[in-house]
């Protein structure tokens, strides 16, 4: 049995679905995370989606593809997408790609890096 290094928790807040990811996002975990989130999004089509990255302690460029892919999916069905409280590991990868120019980032828990 190979241990998983990530976890997904969903929370509803009004018309928003908060998707909280825990652990490590790499190519290995991104495949599973993507499939599970997309099943949820396509079944429920929430008007607002907040991807909470505050509990991410490792992220490489696979995380960029994961964020962009969910952003595109939500936008395609007419919803709104934002990243919530990216951890330092997530934030530096997003900054490297200039992602803040395309995707809304909301900060509620920590100072912006």
């Amino acid at each position, binding site marked *: 049995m*190979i241990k998983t*290094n990530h976890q997904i928790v969903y929370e509803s807040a009004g018309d928003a679905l908060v998707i909280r990811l825990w652990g*490590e996002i*790499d*190519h*290995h975990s*991104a*495949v599973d995370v*993507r499939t599970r989130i997309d099943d949820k999004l396509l079944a429920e089509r929430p008007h607002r989606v907040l991807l909470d990255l505050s509990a991410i302690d*490792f992220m*490489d*460029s*696979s995380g*960029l*593809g*994961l964020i*962009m*892919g969910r952003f595109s999916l939500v936008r395609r069905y007419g919803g709104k997408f934002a990243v919530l409280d990216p951890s330092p*590991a997530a934030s*530096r*990868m997003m900054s*490297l*790609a200039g992602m803040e120019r395309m995707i809304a980032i909301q900060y509620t828990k920590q100072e912006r890096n």
Partner: protein
Amino acid sequence: MTRSTVDFSARVENELDMTLPSLSVNEGMARAAVAAFCSQLNPTAVEIADLKCAVSEAVTNCIVHAYRDTVGDIRINVKLCEGRIVQVEIRDRGCGIDDVKKAREPLFTTDAAGERSGMGFTVMESFCDSVRVTSRIGRGTTVILTKRLHK
């Protein structure tokens, strides 16, 4: 053990060699092992995060591109050198890269459907002092990451 030469003149103080099959679960194993080995130099948390990201990108390239739907060996060699220099060599015997210059361009990817961002080499270059890539079609690719840790 015969120690391979380093691509610069610094003396090698310690060395780790490991070979892992190109299974995606080993991405985490590879970066954790490199980080653990480098910890004897007391790197900062940021330096460790940089090395982990760069190694993860290089190993992912072996799995996603070099071996694609097959499984082959990924050889990882870490050298801790005089002057707090870390050199990590990641080598595969996969398909090779047709145009290395193109592959290193930001956002270039041959696997957009797999949601690859095309940022792998950019991440390696951003988090290391140098990234050297040599590749031969049908023979494989070697990536050498070099990072000097703060004193």
